[in-house]
């Protein structure tokens, strides 16, 4: 442990590299939980974030699923939005310029019903000023065609990633679903097909019913669970993926505090995404960023890169004599 000295240390270096993508800091906001970036501008400066990942975009606008589309569950929520979005053309014409103005680093989450649609999206977004990377969503549980189907089979996952890779020079991030038996295999297929990084995880397939109306609480019956309830699942998936592949991994699922974020980074995630927590506290992503910075100072670390992946997998019996365990990062 570093001794505290009289002179304030220089701010720790929070920048991270994810393959070809270099981010000013590791705190990103997850697709579908931050709109197109404008929605939260009253509460925080999107330019401060490592990146803003926008709502999933398809070639044509999509109305999404019928309501009710969401339900709250203990420590989480289930959504069945069904990838409602404005379509790629309107995104480029209307939404992207606003994000550019805010000097936000933008990652576009893309989604198609067919491999060709993914490829078409990549072509349209390739070279668009202000797009830093593409996140390929092969993991949405809320759409009948495409979506999660692509993410549950290594061959189709590879086909999508390969088709996108062929159409763009942008850094590619592939977003995986936890709704599979061996997530490492899907990750390996995506890496072999040319993805530069992996996001892990999308929502967990889930359900809720009402004993009074005797009906499902979501019109779609099933939806995707997110929030604190899924963090242990996301951590396990991240760990498995990190063991299966060498490429950079972005942890996502139930992150709402700096401690949560650091847990993923301890495993080896090079960045994190904050999702549902944005709904609870619109400024939370910046608070997490500040909490990470405080943690690094406290630990006497100059660079976040020095913390990433330093997990010692030998588990010791915990004793509460070390004050480090109760450091308040919030």
């Amino acid at each position, binding site marked *: 442990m570093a001794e505290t000295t009289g002179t304030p240390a220089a701010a720790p270096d929070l920048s991270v590299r994810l393959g070809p993508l270099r981010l000013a800091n590791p705190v990103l906001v997850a697709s*579908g*939980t931050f709109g197109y970036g404008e929605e939260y501008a009253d509460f925080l400066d999107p330019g401060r974030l490592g990146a803003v990942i926008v709502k999933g975009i398809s070639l044509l606008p999509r*109305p999404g699923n019928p309501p009710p589309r*969401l339900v709250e569950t203990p*420590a989480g929520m289930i*959504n069945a939005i069904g990838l409602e979005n404005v379509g790629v053309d309107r995104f480029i014409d209307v939404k992207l310029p606003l994000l550019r103005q805010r000097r936000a680093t933008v990652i576009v989450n893309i989604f198609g019903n067919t491999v060709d649609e993914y490829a078409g999206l990549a072509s349209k977004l390739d070279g668009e000023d202000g797009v830093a990377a593409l996140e390929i969503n092969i993991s949405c549980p809320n759409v009948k065609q495409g979506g999660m189907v692509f993410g549950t089979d290594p061959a189709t996952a590879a086909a999508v990633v390969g088709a996108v890779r062929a159409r763009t020079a942008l850094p590619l991030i592939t977003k995986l679903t936890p709704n599979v038996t061996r997530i490492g295999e899907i990750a390996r297929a995506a890496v072999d097909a040319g993805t530069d990084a992996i996001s892990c995880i999308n929502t967990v397939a889930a359900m809720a019913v009402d004993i009074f109306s005797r009906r499902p609480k979501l019109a779609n019956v099933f939806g995707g669970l997110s929030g604190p309830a899924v963090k242990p699942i996301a951590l396990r998936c991240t760990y498995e993926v990190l063991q299966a592949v060498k490429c950079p991994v972005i942890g996502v699922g139930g992150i709402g505090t700096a401690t949560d974020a650091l847990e993923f980074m301890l495993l080896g995630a090079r960045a994190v995404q904050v999702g549902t927590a944005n709904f609870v*506290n619109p400024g939370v992503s910046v608070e997490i960023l500040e909490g990470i910075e405080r943690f690094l100072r406290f630990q006497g670390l100059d660079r976040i890169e020095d913390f990433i992946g330093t997990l010692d997998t030998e588990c010791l019996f915990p004793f509460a004599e070390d004050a480090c365990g109760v450091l308040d990062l919030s």
Partner: protein
Amino acid sequence: MPKFQENALILDHREVADRTWLMRLMSPKIALEARAGQFVMVRVRDGIDPLLRRPLSFHRTFPEEGCIELLYRVVGKGTLLLSKTVPGMNLDLLGPLGNGFDLPAPDARGPIALIAGGIGIAPLFDLMERIALSNPAFDPQQMNLFYGTRTVAELLALSYFGALGVRVHWSTDDGSFGHKGHVTRMFAQFAEDSAFRPESLYACGPLEMQFHVARWALAHDVPAQLSLESLMACGLGACLGCALPAASPDDPAADGYVHVCMDGPIFPAGAVQWQKLQVHRPPPPIFLSD
């Protein structure tokens, strides 16, 4: 319109009717910007269960004093927890959110109808106060409030409305006070008997009630503003969870959605496709375990 996150001090909090609580909060930034019909997202407590905020409409606003009042009905976990909070505590609020009601034109003189079902009275009270304040020439007797609840215990006291001088038409489903039956029936009957044609109509209440109001307004060509509800996660237009099926009269093929938190919560009667809404009655007011 700016939105704020404010840590609001609870100044007063009491039960004013059956399971119905009135809370007064110090929230100067939000109070200054608030319009009638807008709402706040309330964090009922720290921690992760319940995780999400709860939307509550402005019941009254006092921009000069920097205060707002919320009126809410305890229906589940979140509102139950909220009812346990006491003056001196703080609540984290986001607001003001949504579009709010349009007030009648400054030269409006004709009658106005306000239809409230149950806790739907909450935003209409602010609206009535603002109409009275913004338009001194307006005769409060021209404001007709049709107010119905299940039973007399849920009705807000008469004295509450006295100061405003509006005409209140009461109803209860069980006939324990005022007209017996649904408030929409009372309203339709009154309109028919007295050839009552409001210049504008405002309503808030359960979806089923709003459906009847919308049908009446469309059939009689009366401009209506309905405060609609939907389950919300963000309240800001980011999650797209609060969708209702949109009806665009010009384009019958349109099958998109409107979003209650940003396109609403106030909508004209023809804005949503009522037949596509699966309206089912809310559960009986009991709690099984909590």
